[in-house]
């Protein structure tokens, strides 16, 4: 068959004929729609009143049992549901009104190209040029240069004030290396205390397979408890001495510990979450934030996950009374890596 006389593409057939709705032709349907909309608006009014009544009438602590939710606070449910009814009544009413009673015949609006006409552009360019001419921009380059420089610089004082007063970064490097485990020269070793109770621990208190969450005794004198804790939190575990790996890492871990009791920084070397999940059978430590896994038998080296470095070990021993003490602070900065960590 020849395709002569046929266009290359189909023609847009134009808008299809409008199909009437029930409410367009049937006054009874229209009346029904009207009643439905009015009912929805009324429901909203009831919701609003319900909210106000609930707000003033229902006590804060009355509980109620609701399937799928369980025991819950009555006030919260009542306020929420009545407010929702109040809002949804208006919403459903208005949309239902628009759909059933307002005209549903589509209208056409013409579009015009977004770009301005050539004349308009020429006019705008003309005004700009004339303005530049009047301001004598070209003839007075020194105004142009100084003006532009001044404009470029004016925000600087504000920036300096803001950045300069946010905090003092000069201490960033030294403070990153310090913890309250650090013992001043000739100072007394610091006792290890339980995190919550802050009581000291005897080596004999630590059973094999147990884990203690530790802070330095110095925390009691701390002026910035959270900031100090954020670097000084330590995890203490006791392994059977034969559990440690038979290599230099295992030996080092053991020798920095006391009879199989070892203490490691709890602050993850990845981004600083507390690494607290100790599996006493595998001797693995897991960080709950990003799943870095450390092997306690091998000096807390990383065996899985996004961390690179081992957890820093805290060297411990016992004092005259048998309490666990740390004779010195960490040998390296604790927590996440940063650029100048090794400096």
């Amino acid at each position, binding site marked *: 068959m020849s395709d002569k006389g046929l266009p290359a593409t189909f023609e847009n057939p134009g808008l299809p004929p409008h199909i009437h709705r029930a409410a367009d032709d049937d006054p009874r349907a229209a009346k029904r729609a009207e009643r439905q909309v009015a009912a929805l608006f009324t429901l909203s009014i009831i919701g609003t009143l319900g909210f106000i009544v609930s707000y003033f009438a229902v006590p804060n602590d009355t509980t109620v049992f609701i399937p799928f939710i369980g025991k819950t606070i009555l006030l919260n449910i009542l306020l929420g549901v009545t407010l929702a009814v109040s809002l949804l009544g208006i919403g459903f009413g208005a949309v239902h009104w628009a759909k059933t009673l307002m005209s549903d015949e589509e209208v056409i609006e013409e579009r015009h190209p977004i770009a301005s006409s050539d004349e308009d552009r020429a006019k705008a360019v003309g005004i700009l040029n004339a303005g530049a001419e009047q301001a004598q921009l070209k003839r007075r380059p020194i105004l142009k240069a100084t003006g532009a420089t001044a404009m470029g610089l004016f925000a600087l004082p504000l920036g300096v004030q803001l950045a300069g007063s946010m905090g003092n*970064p000069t201490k960033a490097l030294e403070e990153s290396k310090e913890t309250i485990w650090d013992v001043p020269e000739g100072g007394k070793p610091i006792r290890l205390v339980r995190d919550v109770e802050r009581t000291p621990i005897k080596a004999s208190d630590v059973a094999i397979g147990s884990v203690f969450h530790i802070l330095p005794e110095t925390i009691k004198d701390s002026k910035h408890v959270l900031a100090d804790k954020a670097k000084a939190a330590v995890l203490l575990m006791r392994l059977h001495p034969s559990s440690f790996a038979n290599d230099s890492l295992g030996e080092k871990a053991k020798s920095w510990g006391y009879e199989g009791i070892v203490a490691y920084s709890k602050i993850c070397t990845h981004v600083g979450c507390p690494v607290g999940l100790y599996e006493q059978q595998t001797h693995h430590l897991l960080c709950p934030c990003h799943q870095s896994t450390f092997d306690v038998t091998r000096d807390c080296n990383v065996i899985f996950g996004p961390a690179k470095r081992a957890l820093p070990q805290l060297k411990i021993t016992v004092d005259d009374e048998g309490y666990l003490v740390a004779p010195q602070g960490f040998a390296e900065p604790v927590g996440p890596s940063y650029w100048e960590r090794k400096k």
Partner: protein
Amino acid sequence: MSTAASARAADLRAGDAKAAPLGAPKTAAGKVAVWADERTGIAKGASVMLKKVFPDHWSFMLGEVAMYSMIICLLTGVFLTFWFVPSMGEVAYQGSYLPLKGITMSEAYSSTLAISFDVRGGLLIRQIHHWAALMFVVSLSVHMFRVFFTGAFRKPREINWVIGTILSMLALIEGFAGYSLPDDLLSGTGIRAAEGFMRSIPIVGSWVSYIVFGGAFPGEAIIPRLYSVHILLLPAILVGLFAAHLILVMVHKHTQYPGPGRTENNVVGFPLMPVYTAKAGGFFFLVFGLLTLISALVTINPIWAYGPYDPSPVTAGSQPDWYMGFADGALRLLPGALEFEIFGFTLSLNVFLGAILLIPVMYTITGAYPFIERWVTGDNREHHLLDRPRNAPTRTALGVAAITAYIILFLAAGNDIMAIRLQMSINDITEALRVLFFVAPVLAFWVTKRICLSLQRHDRDTVLHGRESGTLVRTAEGKYYEVHEDLDPYTRWKLVSFESPAPIAIGSGKDANGVSSKAAKKERRRAKLSRFYFKDRVEPVTPAELAAAHHHGEHEAIEAPSAAPQAVKRAKQD
């Protein structure tokens, strides 16, 4: 006075006279309107605005869900500011939540507990605020998907796409700042990790951290600072950009799906007054109402369960809100091997890539996409008719591939929850997701493209052979065939009114004199990309093809496809 001028004056007077029947306003509303118009001239603009036409489609409401969620957040946020105390000063809790009685905590946490337990209706407002925030990011993401897959970002709307991209990125930061404010154990762990992120920035990391926290982590500055970022700085930018977004929608007029009567030069739909006022206005109440209902029935962020922030404890299942999940997931997948020592300095790419670089890089690629596509297609026309996603197979496939990669990262953030719920090993899940991050997007691309092409072919078949009527006819010889009904022109138009551009021919990369030039090389690259985009394509049925199909008869055409015109055209390689 010339005659022309006097005629104009007469016209004016006539116009005045015509307007006169309106007369002096009688109703109170009329009086107010006249009062306002005499001072603002608002009637001129209003008459244009009120007649503005908006096309009707459910997918066009996704942006509205985002807009309304944002408004609801602003509204409920103002409420919350009246009770929330943005301070890290310590207090001993004396409110009505028993399990925390007497515990030392920050004023921020204590006041959030007060909002939840002691301010009547405070918990409802807080839950609406948080659910609306989640809904805001959900709906703006899905709105972005709609705009992407229908090609609505094409000229002249590239600027609006970029604004939307920035809005989306700021929404993430706004959300992070917001859920960090209560200073509970979970959000505090998030800030703790954020401090680790800052430290990973090469060279300036520890300085940035010290400046942001006003000293060592956590210090006492971060909550008040996040507070002013959350309630002042970012909302101001969000609202400003959003206003620009909306003005541009007005200027461009809304896009519309292809269909009968819809052209590049018109917009078909309903006028603002009254239909859209009722529909869009009503929709605000619907969104607000539904979010309120969710907030009445479902708990969000039970901060009382987490306890106050303390750097020593942590909870299993520490996750950020969902929209930060992909970055957290990236951190879980990036292996520790990416941390290096160079010249004694530490470079933590394992953190830096996922936590600091990922978000800006992702949004830069997203924001640049319209410009990339325009460069490849060389298409400089205005587009107001949307593409059906199947009619742009490569773009659709690219979008699905990107979303797949995003979903893999998102899943990685829940690897621990998956491990317990599915009783799998968290290590296996992590390893699998590491591989899937690279493999799944490629697969998704390929599958999506095939699906698009076969849908297009199906469209062609429908146009050529009509719709299956469900009526079986037995011929005299005992054969059966199904009667196919011809499409009416309105239905057919939707299936044939699309463009299927051919790829640009690949040049030799050398100019006329046989010398390879930079410009020619660029053209060659462009042609290669164009081939990637358009080498597999399905063309719309032409009237001639339809006539030919009719000539062959309805059912024979199916039985003898070789007689039918070549349905799929592979690009010829020159």
